[in-house]
């Protein structure tokens, strides 16, 4: 038995949360939470260092019997598709603690406990190789997220938390039904790898695809089941938004990659064209909605819908560039939009307004803040040289290969992205300096800088030298493609 690195990664935050319960002072809670997330992140770095990029096989696997009667096991493992997101979750976990340092000023202990438990569950989702285990992590995530939005959120927090809960739960129920159907059709096993090897009849695949689609589409979110997202984002505290945008939205796309494509290849190919159109719709519609926003946080929230449209477009292009671009874009979106929500939080802490019209001329008052905001804004609009451009180029190149018209629609979305993001930046950072007079603005401090810098480094690094990241996902994506093509008889 190897050293159980993945169990360590998944359960370090749980142990940390237990320790937090024993502490009294808020400061001790904060520092301990920070320490826990640092340890977790370092474990993930160790994991990536030991990651073998030449194989698509699951790595760092652990298997223990859990409920033998039902064939349920405790099985963890990662491949090139999940590894980037394990790392991203741990990184954003650390940034969430830093972002909540002063922003959360009541029930600090409960908040940090929720945050750490949330992190453990998210890591569990990406590592689980047993469908039942996956489902447990997947559903359990709802609880801490509900608490984070419902207790520490803004004025409409209860409504937003409830809406989030209901939408996701409704999706999850269909997922549960799908899991049960899969269990009985796939030889009464919950082993994800074994289920992947099944050759299900097309009719079954088709129904399962639709059930999974609804479950995952709510998470992504795809139009028209996206309406919970802006509410949840606007009401959530900064850390909640970072988790939502950075990790939770990735889970839907991850579901497509882990379940829909390899388990239901025939249905995936069959439904790929409507999926491309739904993606193009999300890209354009999300972009138009973002263009109409006056609230900074809503703008970033709606932009996520558009950006996740690029991800699903790449996935259902069902070719190498599209898939690699989609996974890279998932990671990029986590980094960039996570950073943008962090920046929205930073400015909200200082001004207590999120209305874009209230800002202006921030460049003069806070040059460091606005410089980094520029970097992440440009990354979000996928300027050449930043991380998102590489992903966008891959997705579009794959998208054009799959469906020319959907590709053209996506380009229109890219143009909208430039419009609302540059417009936002111009109104916030440039123009006459009215902010200095009305609000007391201080530039970023060291703690905030520590949170910003790793994300900034990733933006430029992936923008210019994405090879190490693409190497990680490459073998698994190629394997996934052969699964899809073999299964669909192409």
């Amino acid at each position: 038995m190897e050293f159980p690195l993945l169990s360590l990664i998944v359960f370090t935050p749980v142990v940390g949360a237990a320790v937090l319960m024993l502490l009294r002072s808020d400061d001790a809670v904060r520092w301990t939470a920070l320490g826990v997330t640092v340890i977790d992140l370092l474990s993930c770095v160790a994991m990536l260092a030991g990651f073998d990029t030449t194989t698509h096989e699951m790595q760092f696997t652990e298997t223990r019997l859990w409920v033998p009667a039902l064939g349920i096991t405790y099985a963890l493992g990662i491949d090139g598709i999940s590894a980037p997101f394990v790392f991203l979750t741990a990184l954003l976990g650390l940034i969430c603690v830093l972002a909540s340092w002063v922003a959360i000023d009541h029930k600090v202990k409960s908040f940090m406990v929720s945050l750490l438990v949330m992190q453990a569950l998210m890591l569990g989702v990406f590592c689980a190789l047993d469908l039942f285990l996956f489902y447990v992590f997947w559903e359990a995530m709802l609880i801490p997220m509900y608490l984070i939005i419902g207790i520490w959120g803004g004025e409409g927090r209860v409504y937003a938390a409830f809406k989030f809960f209901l939408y996701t739960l409704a999706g999850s129920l269909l997922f549960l039904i799908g899991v049960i159907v899969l269990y009985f059709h796939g030889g009464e096993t919950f082993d994800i790898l074994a289920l992947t090897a099944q050759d299900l009849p097309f009719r079954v695949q088709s129904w399962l695809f639709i059930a999974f689609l609804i479950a995952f589409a709510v998470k992504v979110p795809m139009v028209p089941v996206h309406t919970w997202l802006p509410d949840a984002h606007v009401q959530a505290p900064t850390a909640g938004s970072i988790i939502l945008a950075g990790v939770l939205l990735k889970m839907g796309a991850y579901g497509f990659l882990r379940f829909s494509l390899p388990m239901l290849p025939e249905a995936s190919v069959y439904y790929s064209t409507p999926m491309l159109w739904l993606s193009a719709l999300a890209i354009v519609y999300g972009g138009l909605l973002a263009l109409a926003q006056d609230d900074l946080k809503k703008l970033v929230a709606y932009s996520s819908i558009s950006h996740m449209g690029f991800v699903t477009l790449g996935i259902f292009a069902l070719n190498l560039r599209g898939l690699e671009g989609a996974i890279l874009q998932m990671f990029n979106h986590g980094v960039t939009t996570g950073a943008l929500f962090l920046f929205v939080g930073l400015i909200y802490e200082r001004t207590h307004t999120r209305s874009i019209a209230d800002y202006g001329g921030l460049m003069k008052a806070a040059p460091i803040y606005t410089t980094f905001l520029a970097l992440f804004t440009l990354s979000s609009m996928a300027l050449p040289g930043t991380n998102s451009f590489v992903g966008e180029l891959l997705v579009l190149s794959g998208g054009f290969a799959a469906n020319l018209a959907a590709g053209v629609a996506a380009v229109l979305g890219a143009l909208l992205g430039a419009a609302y993001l540059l417009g936002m930046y111009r109104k916030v950072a440039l123009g006459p300096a009215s902010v200095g007079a009305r609000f007391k603005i201080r530039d970023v401090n060291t703690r905030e800088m520590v949170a910003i810098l790793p994300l900034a480094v990733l933006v430029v690094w992936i923008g210019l030298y994405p090879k190490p990241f693409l190497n990680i996902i490459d073998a698994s994506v190629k394997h996934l493609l052969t699964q899809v093509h073999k299964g669909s008889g192409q």
Partner: protein
Amino acid sequence: MSIRPLLAVAVAGLAAFAILLLNNREKLRDVVSPLAAVAMFAIVASMAPTVLAGGTVDLRLFEILPGIDFAFRVDALGMVFATVSSLLWIVAAIYSIGYMRHLNEHAQTRFFACFATSLAAAVGGAFAANLFTLVIFYEILSLVTYPLVYHHEDEEGWRGSRKYLVYLMGASKSVLLAALALTYHIAGSLDFMAGGLLSRVDASAPMLTVVYFCYLFGFAKAAVMPMHAWLPAAMVAPTPVSALLHAVAVVKMGVFCVLRVVFHVFGTGLVDGLGLGIATAYLVSFTILMASVYALTRDDLKARLAYSTVSQLSYILLGAVLLSPVAMVGGIIHIAAHAFSKITLFFCAGSIYCASGKRNISDMAGIGRRLPWTMGAFFVGSLSMIGVPPTGGFVSKWYLAWGSVEAGEIAFLIVLLASSVLNAAYFLPVSYVAFFGTEAQESPATVIREIPLMTIPLVATAVLSLSMGIFPDYFLTLAEGVVR
């Protein structure tokens, strides 16, 4: 492998960094730009012998995506652009100091830092070995020139700079992005190749035609109508910016990109085979004539110069798309000829403004007697724009005219001649009024005289315009190297 292409870019990048660090030490800060300019020119010039002999200087840094590297390759076409930009940066750096000090402008550190970064981007683009690397520098150039356009931070500045960004970013995030993704999809690479990257792949003619026009309009810096409106709007920038960036570095980056697409992405054979050459020639001919007509109607000197630039940029493209070797040579050397003359004209406009506060041509009656050097240089620049021997403009126009005859396209010969007449019609009256017009009564307090830090650079560029007409060999050799 040689590190020199990267060094040339880095020198300007580091200069920008140094300028930021020396924020509070004005004298020291102001020395950085001219020094960096000289260093950059020296590095560029050191690669000239290799390129003139038909070789290239290569530097492959690392792989970005399969088929796409971050790489530099100094060839003849890049050398033309890099020589012109780095050489003119030396004079523009000195001129800028004179201009900014004289007007006591605000935010000078930001100004000089952005200026230096623009040059890094321009030369980086000139040396880029593939579309990906080129586009990175292209976008950096858009971004760092944006603060230079809104420099005055007044209502006019915000409005002009907004238009600037909307056009440039809008074009690159829509049609240019589509063109890049399609090219990568079709060819699996974005490398520049002799004879054309896309000429080796199997793709349908309608698809290639769409990609071609996406590039032509996506590189909005080339200012082909209707993507030209950002250029007059950018005239709200301080004059040194209009001079070096919006007459040389930025706009030439645009036409340079289009030339790259015609020569090294499509290849002249493919452009000809698809029948795109003549179609583009008509499009740019329209731009040449329309922009000249616009220029005629502008009284603001800088606006007139801006429309003249729109018109002249299309000369360069016309030469390229006529696809006859002689016309292509004419188009390429017009990059240099137009740069030397147009920067002179802008320098003069700035000098007039600093000395007298005048911007409108109708107010400039008699100013030539007060500013003889400035208006003398202006006259030389005008002659070159019109194409009168022995100026640089004559050489390029001669090749363009000869090329259109060689291509058997007499219509474009007529366009060239008609636009020359228009050039004369909107430039010569300026000189005439300045030297022979009757001066309006000024209050005796206004003393209008030459400002040495500005006059010396503008005389230097006027001399460059002339000497390019007398010794065009350097640029001709390079241009023939591109066409060969």
